[in-house]
């Protein structure tokens, strides 16, 4: 599914003293089969944007199109099935007595039948490496385990697009790596992944394209290479680029690597026989 945002504006609490314009006319294309990373500081509008993709929030002006169709004309339940949204700290919403019952929540809402529901629960738990937790109560799990279960719960809807708001926040490095692997696998399998993250290094490793939001507007959209070599601010530049950029003036042959392996290779080449 391709999602297109056309000049989307969103205002919180309009007409009150607490009025805030969170999105000021964002235009963005989300392709199918890609991992799109959305980065930006606090107050940039990232979470607000995420909630527009499944119409939990509606735009004050502008349009959102899914495969060319205005999302406001699609039945809510169908839109939310096709665009799955995983919130920040999603484990706060786990509620069923066992993990498999919790993951089954969404398929049951879709009335898929017992067999299909069971199949989906099994497959998503397996994908997230949580099959062994099926009969456990969710609140007794570790933070990393809960996160996996929460994501499985959304994947059980078999969405065409998976939107995740800070999916690796608060996790230890090993669980983080596992999750990023899952996202890559989903993309390879045909699901679009939209990942909102404040961790630039992570986005640099995984994203096919990046969108930088600032104060409710998109400041840049493009491949990681195009985007991350543009900004002077260290706060918008992943570590790999921060290492390479000062070298490009005197040694342009180092190129514009972004991912770790390609950066290491380029630097080794540069340092030459010294390593």
């Amino acid at each position: 599914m391709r999602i297109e945002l056309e000049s989307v504006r969103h205002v919180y609490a309009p007409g009150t003293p607490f009025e805030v314009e969170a999105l000021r006319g964002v235009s963005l294309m989300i392709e199918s089969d890609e991992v799109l990373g959305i980065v930006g500081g606090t107050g940039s509008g990232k979470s607000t944007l995420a909630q527009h993709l499944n119409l939990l929030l509606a735009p004050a002006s502008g349009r959102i199109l899914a495969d060319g169709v205005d999302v406001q004309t699609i039945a809510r339940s169908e839109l939310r099935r096709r665009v799955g949204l995983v919130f920040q700290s999603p484990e706060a919403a786990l509620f069923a007595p066992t993990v498999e019952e919790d993951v089954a929540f969404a398929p049951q809402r879709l009335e898929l039948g017992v067999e299909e529901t069971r199949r989906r629960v099994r497959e998503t738990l397996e994908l997230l490496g949580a099959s062994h937790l099926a009969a456990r109560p969710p609140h007794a799990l570790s933070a990393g385990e809960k996160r996996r279960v929460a994501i499985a719960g959304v994947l059980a809807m078999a969405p065409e697009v998976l939107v995740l708001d800070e999916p690796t926040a608060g996790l230890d490095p090993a669980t983080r790596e596992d999750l990023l692997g899952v996202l890559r696998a989903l993309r390879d399998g045909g699901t679009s992944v939209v990942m909102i993250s404040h961790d630039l290094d992570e986005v640099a490793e995984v994203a096919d394209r990046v969108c930088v939001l600032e104060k409710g507007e998109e400041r840049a959209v493009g491949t990681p290479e195009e985007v991350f070599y543009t900004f002077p601010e260290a706060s918008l530049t992943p570590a790999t680029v921060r290492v390479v950029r000062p070298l490009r003036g005197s040694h342009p042959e180092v190129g514009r690597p972004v991912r770790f392996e390609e950066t290491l290779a380029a630097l080794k080449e540069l340092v030459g026989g010294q390593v």
Partner: protein
Amino acid sequence: MIDGNNEGARRSGPSVVSCGDLAFSYPGSEGAALTGVSFEARAGEYVGVVGPNGGGKSTLLRLLNGLIKADTGSVSIGGLDPAAEPFEVRKRVGMLFQNPDNGLVAPFVEDDVAFGLENLGVGRAEMRERVRRAIRAVGLEGYERREPHTLSGGEKQRVALAGLLALDPEILLLDEPTSMLDAAGRREVLERLEELRGTRTILHVTHHLDELLSADHVLVLNAGELVADVFPKRLVSDAKLRRENRLALPTASRLAAGLRLDPAQLRTPEELAEAILRRVKLGVEAR
């Protein structure tokens, strides 16, 4: 514990925190949370505590603070036994928790910072002065009448830190204080913690190894055991240690290691870039 993994224990100075053969199990759980843990922290040291989740790091801090009592073994902190005299211990030991929200008690920032002082029965005039100083120390002047739910994660942790500093503790226990914060919040809190180095003894549990590169020594806890007590550069040089304990170096350090440059000397990516330029220049001059 293998001898080579205990190099960090060989230092000198008065001991301020020490554990001997500490063991603890949570009631009703299968395995032990901690077994046979022994280490020392000396006055003014900055000690890192790392290891996979569930390995016993938080449990250790709670034992030091008297929130839980060890099953066997000895604990001494500030010269006191936390199991026997928890109240006295808490006058000297401040603990910062992972969740910024759940440590804030009062409806206003000022009152929350005063909470610890109220508990100790400090007089009102002295309280006002200490609260003022603590709020200034964390850079939150002007925030006195703010309500907690209006603050960012980084601001909330700074309020919690101010609440600790108001009590002027000798020892600080930090339980992953930045893991629930975004990059900006993390920076805010780490800056303040930097300023406290050297004046107090600090134990810092974290997943971010870059925060520990200048630590005096680092404890590695895995499955309840202290598998290593080493100097930070060991974390960088020993890939097996990292792999077995699920530790990840930050990107710049990994690049430095891959290029055979010393990551312990290079704190930021920009410093690494400079080191690379120097190396390349040397290479050109050598030819």
